[in-house]
């Protein structure tokens, strides 16, 4: 626990240099989104940082998921109670960068040797309109997880290795038919990250990353959504639980109630812990093309923080992206290395050698694609959940939903310009 680390640290500080020393510390309030194994790994990184920087105290708060952070940050602005540093998902910080809430980190990063160490893909996620607003911390691509034991019990003598939508559906159907009686489903309803990946693999997108054109109602996007929705309400190979709450889909997979789960490589650590050697990891299916989105988050610093705090916060941000920290993070969670030197670190090298599944996301990098991050994306993603529910539960035809959604997104984009 970070607080315990902090307590120990401040206790020793007091012991060493009398009670006043602790009061002189620079405090950096930091909001993040990691619980479970990720939370513990983050606590370790923070403890390391504080040990190396005795004058700086990182005060963490686990706010919830990416959506919760965006909401809480936005609410905090008029109240002047924003933190000093915050984890922001790679497609949703444009809103804050655009309105001057985030500090432009370009000068900091330019002066930081870290810049050269970051992989290009990782550095790119932090750039909005030519300036750097977040420094990558946890980056990911979606991968295909499956439960080997379930596959074997469903009668697959060898790995089914689904590549296309049709393959995936066929495998899911077999599993559901064979083991549905035990409450086992073929596939988990794809979560928001996996959905974006499946759309890309159908040679489409939600927003074009170059032109910014909204592609929600493009024919290939519509086809992708039709197929994804059909998993739930037509073929019933995916449980509707995962539609209303995608965590339930993940839970079902860790509980051995789902054969296939498409999701972030950042879930790897938790899945290994739950499923052990039953877990297999493969690249995302390629329906029309092989293409995956780059996801995850970086850390931004608030423009409202005091200069001294901003500098302390940047030290932490840079430390968190260093090879040493990133190696620990990578090994504990499965998020991709963002630093070129990460793989040389013993802890990362060991993970790569002993856990073959952890490198699938890295191997996918040649086909990974960054996503645009204009302010409207934040709105689009918040609103998108309801749209997906309506389609997946068969409440509203896919084409109609997406046409409407696209029109509203365009209107919203105009408004937010």
């Amino acid at each position, binding site marked *: 626990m970070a607080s315990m680390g902090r307590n120990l640290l401040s206790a020793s500080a007091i012991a060493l240099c009398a009670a006043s020393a602790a009061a002189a510390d620079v405090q950096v309030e930091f909001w993040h989104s990691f619980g*479970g194994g990720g939370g513990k790994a983050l606590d370790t990184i923070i403890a390391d940082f504080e040990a190396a920087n005795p004058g700086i105290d990182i005060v963490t708060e686990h706010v919830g998921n990416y959506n919760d952070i965006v909401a809480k940050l936005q*609410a*905090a602005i008029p*109240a002047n*109670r924003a933190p000093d540093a915050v984890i922001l998902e790679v497609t949703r910080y444009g809103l804050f960068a655009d309105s001057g809430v985030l500090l432009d980190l370009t000068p900091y990063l330019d002066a930081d040797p870290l810049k050269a160490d970051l992989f290009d893909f990782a550095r790119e996620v932090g750039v909005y309109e030519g300036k750097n607003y977040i420094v990558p911390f946890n980056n990911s691509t979606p991968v295909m997880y499956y439960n080997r034991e379930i596959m074997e019990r469903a009668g697959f003598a060898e790995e089914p290795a689904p590549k296309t939508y049709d393959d995936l559906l066929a495998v899911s159907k077999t599993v559901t038919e064979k083991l549905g009686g035990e409450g086992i489903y073929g596939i988990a309803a794809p979560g928001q990250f996996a959905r974006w990946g499946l759309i890309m693999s159908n040679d489409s997108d939600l927003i074009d990353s170059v032109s910014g054109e909204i592609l929600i109602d493009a024919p290939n996007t519509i086809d992708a959504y039709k197929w994804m929705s059909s998993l739930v309400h037509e073929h019933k190979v995916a449980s509707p639980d995962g539609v209303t709450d995608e965590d339930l889909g993940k839970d079902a997979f860790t509980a051995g109630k789902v054969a296939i789960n498409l999701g972030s490589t950042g879930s790897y650590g938790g899945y290994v812990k*739950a499923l052990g050697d039953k877990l297999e990891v493969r690249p995302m299916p390629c329906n029309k093309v092989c293409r995956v989105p780059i996801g995850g988050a970086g850390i931004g610093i608030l423009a409202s923080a005091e200069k001294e705090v901003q500098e302390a916060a940047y030290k932490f941000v840079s430390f968190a992206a260093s090879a040493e920290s990133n190696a620990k993070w990578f090994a504990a969670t499965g998020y991709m290395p963002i630093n070129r030197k990460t793989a040389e670190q013993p802890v990362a090298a060991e993970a790569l050698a002993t856990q073959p599944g952890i490198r699938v996301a890295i191997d996918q990098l040649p086909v990974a694609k960054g996503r645009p991050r204009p302010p409207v994306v934040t709105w689009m993603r918040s609103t998108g959940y309801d749209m997906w529910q309506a389609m997946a539960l068969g409440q509203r035809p896919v084409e109609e939903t997406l046409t409407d959604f696209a029109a509203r997104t365009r209107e919203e984009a105009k408004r937010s310009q």
Partner: protein
Amino acid sequence: MKRDPLLLTGLALGAGLLFLAPVIYSIWLSFQTANAYYTGTLAFTLDNYGHAIGQYNFARYLVNSVIVSGLVTLIGISLATMAAFAFARWRFWGGDFLFGAVVATLMIPSHITLIPNYLTLAKVGLLDTYAGLVLPAISSGFAAFFLRQYIRGIPRALDEAAYMDGATPLQVLLRVIVPVARPAILSMGLYIFISEWNSYIWPLVAVGRQDMYTLQIGLARLYRINPGEGMIDWPLVMAASTLTLLPVLLGFFLVERHLIRGITMGAVK
């Protein structure tokens, strides 16, 4: 048709327990280990309460709820009694209009004030404070309306006797009206306390810092963040839920009569 009163009592008790079964079962569940719950066996523990109070901070939430509900009740009932006294005992310029404005708040959905109140308290820096939770909840139009009706029923001769003895209006309020109206004030106080204890949307909006959560917010959030590896840790959630409803549950048996009298007095003239 003659019926055995003992049998009837038994039947009523059974029906009542059946009605409350979800709550009773949830309390029972809070004493089980998560493991036992998921494997369908029985194993009892107090750990869930330990975790809720310690790791998940429910002791703090309990204190917050007590402070906030207590302050709202004390200040709210005082203001309502004073205003009720004024509206019941004086006819003054604008009095009817002002009383109308108080009563009209009963019809106004509180949600229209949500965003502006958030902004007001943000501006003065009172979000995440007890004051921020308490201030917008203080005015109870219902209590003022109800107590005014009640005070009007108190014979004026009592006031006048006190004035004869040289009492000031404040003294009359404190020494004559309040003692006579005690049951009504008590009932309204309970009503305010329970409403505030269970209040949800304003604390949800006004509080961001975890150490300022009330029980309601703490519980909703504990349920939302879904503790437990993979599966929801229902026994832990139920321990937190029990902590949240227990104070009112215990109080209920002590004050049921006052409470019921309060609501029925308000409803039926």
